[in-house]
Structures are given as C-alpha cells and as structure tokens.
C-alpha cells in the first residue's frame, strides 16, 4: 500500500519520538565537533502531498538570514531525502573548526571546493548520523548519495523541490548554538515508495517497544 491514509496520528507520534532519538544522537556529534552546547527542538512530523510538505518545511525552516539548503539522498528499504538548512554563521563556525582563519566569510564568498568540503562535513555529522540512528532503531541500513547544495542564498524552499503529486512523510527538527544565536534545520523524508516498508517497520517497533 502506498497511500498515506494508512498512517495514523499514533504513527506520527512514534515517528516524532524516533526523530527525537536520531536527531539527539546527531546533535551530540556536532556539539562534540564544535566543542559547544546545542539546544535541540522538539521534532515535528507532517504527512501530505508536495504542496503540504513545502508549506510545512517553510513554516519550520529556521531563518535568520539567507541560508543554503543542502540535499542528500539515501536509499535502502527506506528511501528518502534529507535537507539541511545552514545559515552563513554556522558555515563560519565550521570554517573555524576546520582550521580556516576567515571566520567572517559568508556562504557566497567561498570557493566551490571550500563550500563542498564544509557542507560535506556538516552533512556527515548531522544527516548521516541522524539517518543511521533512525535506521538502527528500525534495524535497517542505508546508502547515501553525496550531499550537494540544492538552494543557495534563499529564505525558503521553492515550490519545485517537492513533487506536488507525490505523497510523503517529513520529519523536522531544529538546533541552535551560542545561546540560540546560530541555528539550522534538518528535514528528512520517507518517500511514497517506502510506505509499505514503513507500515511494517512501525508495526514491528510497536510490538517490540510499546
């Protein structure tokens, strides 16, 4: 079954808690890398078509300034995409920990090679860690595509990102550091072609944990 109607509000609560566990583990890795404390938001989950998901993503995208949105696909029994909204200030923090001196650099000022390296670093810390933790909970394994910059210097997701005819489930969580001065958002999707697997995975989770 690939219909979103098979998922209930209880299923949504389970996916929120699973996202909470995955994101908590991922932020611990980022906090260690940055040697700072990260404040973590309570995750949210939305289910709907591309239009619904675009609206949900934009409502929850943490925007203080222009940001870049990194996209990374993953596949296995669970197919989906992760989107990471990264503000310029966080890139500067990453530059700092990676040994660059130019802490004031903005996203748009960086060379392509630098940008790719920074986003790959942030991505490996947050996206891979979060997905891997969630996959562990579901007893699954995923393969990842290389992360790339999907949107640059934007303040929202454009209408073209999500296919309006496809249903999907999206989980989001936000993080902030330096007393909430800098923050970002992580979104992950469960694609429609994984709904059959997800139904079964949630049922197994309930049986084993609730």
């Amino acid at each position, binding site marked *: 079954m690939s219909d979103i109607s098979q998922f209930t509000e209880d299923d949504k*609560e*389970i996916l*929120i*808690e699973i996202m*909470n*566990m995955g*994101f*908590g*583990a991922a*932020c*611990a890795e980022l*906090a*260690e890398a940055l040697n700072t*404390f*990260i404040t*973590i*938001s*309570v995750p949210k989950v939305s289910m709907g078509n591309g239009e619904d998901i675009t609206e949900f993503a934009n409502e929850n995208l943490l925007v203080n300034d222009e940001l870049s949105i990194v996209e990374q696909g993953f596949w296995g029994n669970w197919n989906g995409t992760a989107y990471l909204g990264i503000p310029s200030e966080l890139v500067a923090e990453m530059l700092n920990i990676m040994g660059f001196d130019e802490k004031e650099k903005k996203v748009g000022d960086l060379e392509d090679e630098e940008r790719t390296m920074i986003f790959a670093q942030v991505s490996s810390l947050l996206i891979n860690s979060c997905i891997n933790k969630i996959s562990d*909970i579901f007893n699954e394994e995923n393969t990842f595509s290389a992360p790339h910059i999907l949107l640059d210097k934007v303040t929202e997701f454009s209408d073209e990102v999500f296919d309006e005819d496809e249903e999907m489930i999206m989980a989001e969580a936000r993080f902030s550091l330096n007393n909430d001065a800098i923050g970002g958002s992580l979104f992950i999707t469960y694609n429609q072609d994984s709904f059959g697997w997800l139904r079964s995975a949630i049922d197994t989770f309930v049986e084993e*944990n*609730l």
Partner: protein
Amino acid sequence: MEIKKILVIDDSAVARKMLIRVVPNKEEYEFIQAGGGKEGLELYQKEKPDLVFLDLTMPEMDGFQCLEVMMKFDPNAKVIINSADAQKEAKERVLALGALKVQDKPPSEESMVSMLGWLEDNV
C-alpha cells in the same frame, strides 16, 4: 532506597510507554505520568513520588528548567534523566543540577535493571 511510586515526565506518550515497558516487575510500582515540565512539577508536589524519570527536550518548560525547580522545591528529589540528548555537556549540566543518573533513549530492559539495582544499592 525503596521505590513504590514513579513519576515519568515526557512530552511524548510513546516515550513514556517505552520507558514503563522496560521496568522489571512493573506491577510492584505505581506509575504517574506527566506530558510536560509544568505538569510534572505539579504532580511531583502533589504525589511525592519516590523516583522521577525526566526527559530533557520538551516544549514550554524543558527538562533542565523542570529539574532546577524540582531540586529547589525538594533537594532530596531522586531524578533520573531519560533523554535522547546525548551531549556530554547536557549530561554534566543535569548532574550538576542534582540528577542522579542519565539514561540514553531508548532505554533497554538491561539498562533499566541496572539502573534500579544501582538505586537500591547506592541511594
């Protein structure tokens, strides 16, 4: 310490169920549940539980704030943190605030048995 009444504070009903499920011999305990920090504090004052399991990431009043207020109200409160926030600094903060131990989510039967055994022997 003798444990009879346990208060579980977590905004997620799923997380509360997961935690209670792994408590051994659960019929020996009375469980009280709160869906947030403020409700948890109210129930703590009203019910005076022997043990509290407290989540950290919650809306409105988070676990750090809840713990701080609870320890001021009752410096002898016995609080175990049950959280997905695995940051070292988060653990250090709650221990400094007075929590006895930190348990990572999801809790397992083994970790819960070990935790309760430690409480019996050391608190």
